[in-house]
């Protein structure tokens, strides 16, 4: 499945969830907060978008369910962790953006650079 997954850019929601999980395992609400923060509130994942993305990402193996850390006392919370596959996809995506930024810099589209 890997090659087909990587053919197209992943959905913005999927990308941001992967990015949020890159720094550690989180539960759904935590991911939402992390994405809010990373995008300064520009990307606000709705409940359906967030949890449906999580479900499908678990199904295709980009992320996985993990047991909650000991300090979390809310048994309802499900924690997610990024998988190797997910990390690879994230890297490809970030590299894609990096490439775009480099081209933009060369063309002086990016403010504050020359």
């Amino acid at each position, binding site marked *: *499945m890997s090659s*087909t*997954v990587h*053919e*197209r850019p*992943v*959905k913005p*929601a*999927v990308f941001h969830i992967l990015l949020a999980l890159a720094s550690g395992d989180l*539960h*759904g*609400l*935590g991911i*939402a*907060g*992390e994405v*809010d*923060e990373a995008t300064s*509130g520009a990307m*606000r*994942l*709705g*409940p*359906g*978008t*967030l*949890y*449906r*993305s*999580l*479900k*499908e*990402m678990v*199904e*295709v193996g*980009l992320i996985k369910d993990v047991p909650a850390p000991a300090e979390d006392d809310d048994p*309802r*919370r*499900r924690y997610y962790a990024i998988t190797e596959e997910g990390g690879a996809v994230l890297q490809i995506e970030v590299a894609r953006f990096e490439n775009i930024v480099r081209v933009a810099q060369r063309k002086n589209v990016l403010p504050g650079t020359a």
Partner: protein
Amino acid sequence: MSRLPERLPEQPGPGERLYRALLLLYPRRFRSDFGPAMIDLFHVRRWQYLSEGGSFVALRFWTFVLRDLVGTALPERFGPLAARLFGSGEGEGEGAPRALATKTRGLGMESMWGDVRYAIRRLVRTPGFSALAILIVALGIGVNSAMFSVLNAALFRPLPVGIRMALGAGRSQVIGMVLSEVMSVVGVGAVIGLGLAWAATRGLGGLLYGVSTTDPVTFVGVVVVLGAVAFLATLVPARRAARANPVTALRYD
């Protein structure tokens, strides 16, 4: 770690009740897996919108919620089916949503949504076809409600024959009277319907498969079948009504 409040005060107002009801759009499995967590996030989002304020904040919030809901509940529930229904596949050029949908299955959580958008685009581009489609759906709904009101009238309410029977009309007279009344209504309806159908044939040409638009067998067949249904639907309750005690029937008139 984030600027989301960890726990929000419980406030099961009408908003949450509405959202809980809307969650029924998702398949049961999805709901039981994620429902409570989704309601939590719903509260967080609502709190965010409200604290930012601004004009029409409720409207903007619910637009956000409904878009999120429709965009995920429908593909979650109808994903594969919708792809089959909306994916044209017939080499439609730029759209080709089905090929994309298969390639990105799994991550393409919005593939069905894309199909819907594609369908809407096509509808907007061909207003004549859209009008016809809407008309057909409306007629379908109308036919359904008509059928059920006829059913209701025929099966659950005694026919208004008591007064005639009390005045001395015989069984066969009553049945004949009811039948002729109903059948004349059916006849008028059939004539109007045939006229409309004939008028619609111009637009229908491209949509039908294996039937010419003015196929006489179809026209006659439809009239005969519907007439027979109406006849039976009238005869049965009419016979029953004619058998009833006039005094009982009178009470319902």
